[in-house]
């Protein structure tokens, strides 16, 4: 949970390089609440990107969030207005905390569910609090002539950590090899400013292709394998 404090600080420091009002950096941590997303937004704001470019980049970068909600559908049920905040605050870190939370009691027990949701709400709010505090610290530190050169590496470090967490969850090698291969190909054939989006889009297409092949193969296997008389 505390991980958001230094990362928020890194974001705050990075934001001051934009020569915009620091309040806008604070606003970003209040209304966007995304680690990688906000770093990317700073990079795009600095590059003078347009609305469409920023929207597409954010959607693609956060496409992994599309699948986070699926495992929490049941647990967020009937949370009322709190549900909007729980969904808003579903960052990588918050998701991994909530997903690893043991369920208290029976899934039909309304009191246990309420208790569960109150706890999840506290975790989400605390995570945002650390993130916002970190941002403020970073914005303030930048006023103190603190040499922040190189702090942007915090984002790369976050990606490495999240990638290793994915490895622990998946224990399969090919998705990582595919990601590397697509990016290296992208370095060859894509212009620099299209590298990120082009690589993610290419990887999505390849994964769709993999799904189609995988589906056909399992379908063929199930029709051609004779049923065992004992099963």
């Amino acid at each position, binding site marked *: 949970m505390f991980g958001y404090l230094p990362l928020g600080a890194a974001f705050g420091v990075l934001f001051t390089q934009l020569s915009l009002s620091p309040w806008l950096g604070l606003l*970003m941590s209040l209304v966007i609440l995304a680690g990688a997303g906000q770093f990317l937004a700073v990079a795009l704001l600095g590059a003078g990107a347009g609305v469409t470019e920023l929207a597409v980049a954010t959607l693609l970068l956060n496409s992994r969030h599309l*699948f986070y909600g699926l495992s929490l559908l049941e647990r967020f049920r009937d949370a009322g207005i709190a549900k909007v905040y729980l969904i808003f605050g579903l960052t990588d870190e918050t998701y991994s905390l909530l997903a690893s939370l043991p369920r208290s009691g029976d899934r039909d027990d309304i009191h246990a569910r309420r208790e569960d949701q109150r706890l999840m709400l506290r975790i989400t709010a605390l995570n945002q609090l650390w993130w916002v505090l970190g941002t403020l610290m970073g914005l303030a530190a930048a006023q103190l002539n603190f040499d922040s050169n190189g702090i942007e590496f915090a984002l790369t470090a976050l990606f490495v950590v999240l990638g290793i967490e994915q490895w622990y969850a998946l224990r399969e090698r090919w998705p990582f090899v595919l990601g590397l291969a697509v990016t290296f190909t992208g370095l060859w054939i894509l212009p620099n400013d299209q590298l990120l989006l082009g690589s993610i889009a290419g990887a999505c297409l390849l994964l769709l292709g993999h799904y189609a092949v995988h589906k056909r193969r399992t379908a063929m296997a199930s029709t051609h394998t004779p049923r065992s008389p004992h099963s």
Partner: protein
Amino acid sequence: MTTTHALILIIVAALATFATRVTPFLFLSRHSAHPLILHMGRYLPAIVMTVLVAVSLSAMTLPVFEVSTDDLPTAWQHWLMSAKGAGMLISAICVAGLHLWRRNALLSIAVGTGIYMAWVQIGTPAVVG
């Protein structure tokens, strides 16, 4: 950039971020068992993270590639021999090693960033450039 323009972009980023988080609750709840959704949900995060690592390791020194995009092995050699490229690679390996060892996200990120900041601030002279 004007404050108004920045405000508009921030609101767009906020909406786009919320859109990706709310979609499963709005549209995918009835299809949450569909094999395509399960397949994408299983593999996409790992692939996206790998792309992000690879892109951010190369993107910060991308001007290097403008030297000779036709000759990528030479460009990689330049990247590796530049202070930033080597520092990033070493710091990234430290982050990965530390995380595999202790599995403490805060520790891995803080130490790795510290190493990289020290590297670029102490000003290892670039071999190239």
